[in-house]
């Protein structure tokens, strides 16, 4: 059981709830009971939550019996040790889950050329829509992350590849092991993954513990745990270590961190002259237009390729109900009709007759397909 202070199911009365929770409403028209705090702490995402008040969370009724029985609900079973081992294969930055093993840059290149190059390109240069794994020296490229084309659209942008951007190398091992190669994932041995990681470090011109990951380098678990990614401190808020959730809460409580605009306690919003004077109309220059399928809002019949039907199957599902008792397939009763010529028989079938034959027997077959059914009924044979 988890402790009471972690429960979010609030059974307090409405009056107490209003006292407990900050109303985040901003002159709203909807009047839901929203709270920007949970147990006195800011929400984790800067948004609001809807505590259960008077049996409802926001507009939704909550069955109060569920809270009573939930502590007694255990519908499954405990996983076995082998089941946990089979599925708990994630790898964390501190080495949790990282298997023993080793692999060389040389072996990595061999595996790469056999299983990876067709998507990720020569030396991880990318291609086929798949991401590049390297664009050069990781330490140099990490410095491009301050490049931002907001003032000069023609400037160089930032380069975000494994070496320059990713905060943890554990991600690379984990993802290769679990997700690569895409069409045959989970097929690489641990040593092959070590080799591929070594190769990716090599093409990103990285070093481990001061030593260059050159063509002769052999990576193992011990060395892996010494890898420091160039951009490991490039992310905010800091989610590692104690107090992480408090740091996240504080980060999203401040709109300035992520470019939000908060009207704080119902301040008036701008209704006139809300754009800067320098703001001008920017139109699409070229743009992206290769939409698949092409854009259209036309309501017409789709172009369909004629698929030949099986006349016997159509007969059984659609015609037999009436025709089995009169004018059955190949019946002598047809002779009088056939004397009028097949074109007349077809035409009567397609248009229907006052004698009770529905147009095309009530099907939506093409004329050509319908005629094959007529051929079958009149002759008893499939042509």
């Amino acid at each position, binding site marked *: 059981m*988890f402790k009471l202070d*972690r*429960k979010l*199911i609030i059974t307090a009365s409405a009056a107490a709830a209003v006292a407990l929770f900050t109303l*985040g409403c*901003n002159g*709203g028209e909807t009047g*839901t009971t*929203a709270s*920007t705090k949970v147990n006195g702490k800011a929400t*984790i995402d800067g948004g*609001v*939550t809807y505590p259960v008040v008077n049996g409802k969370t*926001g507009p*939704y009724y909550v069955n109060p019996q569920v809270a009573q029985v939930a*502590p007694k609900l255990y*519908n499954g079973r*405990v996983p076995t040790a082998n*089941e946990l081992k089979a599925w*708990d294969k*994630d790898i*964390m930055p*501190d080495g949790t889950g990282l298997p023993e093993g080793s692999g060389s840059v040389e072996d990595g290149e061999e595996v790469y050329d056999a299983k990876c190059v067709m998507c990720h390109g020569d030396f991880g240069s990318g291609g086929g*829509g798949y*991401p590049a794994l390297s664009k050069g020296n990781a330490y140099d490229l990490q410095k491009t*992350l*301050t490049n*931002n084309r*907001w003032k000069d659209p023609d400037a160089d942008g*930032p380069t975000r590849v494994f070496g320059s951007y990713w*905060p943890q190398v554990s991600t690379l091992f984990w*993802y290769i092991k679990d*997700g690569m190669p*895409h069409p045959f994932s989970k097929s690489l041995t641990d040593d092959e993954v070590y080799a591929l990681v070594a190769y990716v470090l090599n093409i990103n011109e990285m070093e481990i513990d001061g030593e260059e990951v050159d063509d002769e380098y052999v990576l193992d678990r011990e060395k892996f745990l010494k890898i420091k990614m160039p951009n490991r401190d*490039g*992310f905010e808020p800091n989610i590692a270590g104690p107090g992480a959730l408090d740091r996240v809460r504080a980060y999203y409580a401040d709109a300035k*961190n992520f470019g*939000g*605009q908060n*009207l704080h306690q119902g301040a008036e919003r701008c209704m*006139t002259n*809300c*754009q800067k004077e*320098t*703001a*001008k*109309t920017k*139109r*699409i220059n070229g*743009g*992206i237009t*290769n939409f698949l*399928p*092409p*854009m*259209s*809002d036309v*309501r017409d019949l789709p172009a369909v390729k004629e698929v030949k039907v099986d006349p016997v199957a159509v007969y059984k599902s659609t015609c037999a109900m009436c025709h089995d008792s009169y004018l059955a397939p190949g019946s002598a009763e047809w002779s009088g009709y056939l004397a009028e010529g097949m074109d007349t028989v077809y035409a009567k079938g397609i248009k*229907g007759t006052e004698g009770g034959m529905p*147009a095309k027997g009530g099907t939506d077959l093409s004329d050509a397909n319908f005629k094959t059914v007529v051929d079958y009924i009149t002759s008893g044979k499939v042509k």
Partner: protein
Amino acid sequence: MNNKESQKVLERRDFFKKTAALSVTAIAGTSLVSSNARADDPAIINNVPWGQKWGDPVTKNRYGMPSKYEHNVLRRNTKLLASGNFRASIAVAPIQESMGIITPNGLFFSRCHGGVAQIDPNEYRLMIHGLVEKPIVLTLEQLKRYPSVTRTHFIECPANGGQEWRGPQFNSVQFAKGFMSSAEWTGVYIKTILEDLGLKPEAQWMLAEGSDNSEMGRTVPVDKVLDDAMIVWGQNGEALRPEQGYPVRLLLPGWEGNLCVKWLKRLEFATEPWYCKEETSKYTDLKPTGKAIQHFYANEVNSTVTSPSPEIDWTHLKDGDIVEIEGLAWSGMGTITGVDLSFDGGRNYVKANLKGLVLPKSWTRWSYIHTYKKGEVLQLTSRAMDDAGYIQPTIDQEVSVMGVEAVYHRNAVETWEVNAKGEVNHVQIRS
């Protein structure tokens, strides 16, 4: 667009054919209502084919399909947003055609990282373990035995609009804003399951992992798990579609679609976060400082005009026609409290009207009735607010903090320009 143009030409030609025998004034555009010499509409005068023959038997479609005439209402994609033969790729929803606040399951946008997995529900298992007193393995039947809740929420890819940080790119609302859809989801609150499993006090983070070939994983803070996080199996009254993670996905209402892990296989609790591929290499927002936001959870307050659109414009309107400008507003941080509409690109606003149900972390419909003046040029900009106190920023405001390289979480106001012909183009108003 060519189809559409030719259709319009056809319509116009038909109109003139019908009126050619009649008076010159009718052709000159005198109202058909007041004219004495009016063309008879063959759709009324003649018998229609479906009115004179049997319709389809009720046995025909055991699972119903849309009318064949709706065949152009489709998810679409573009090669520029496709990795590897459309396996790590996105197909976007035709929101220009959407009605109300629910997306039909067949049109729900679909983003995957290794293709759409096809899972045998009989072999489906969910494991919850790590820092819980009692770990658990559940079959699908066992999972669905928990008391269910049903909630209406949008799911939005945080890259919705992410191609347009540096300028407008898509002359299409489907592509500019259709990286999202909305449904009524049925499942169980994770907190209900945890009541018995017992979350240990030191648990801070939850790993959610999919069973597809990419083992799509993300780290979730326990705050969300204990608030409104759900494990869902129902979508608009039926089983989840494979594209949405059949048979089971995680649903974190309002948060990045990528966090709502599909084909859900495993939940593990720990004291430290995981650093999955899709929360480090991607789904992080690089700022001009060179620092990137990681763990950016909620899709912020947002809105767009959906009608008119570049796809379905106003070229057919006549002077003085009364028309409804319609759109969607949504916030992953809470409930929409209001929407404003500007006719001059966000310089000046009037209050638009919310309509229909207004639900937390849900699409919300808004509209404004407008009398169209033939030849007028409008820049339609909508701006939404939520009950967390947030209002959509201008592009200049958002870019001043986020720069233009962030890729994700762009929620500045969107502008659709109606030109003198009634055509609609996507523009941006920015310095």
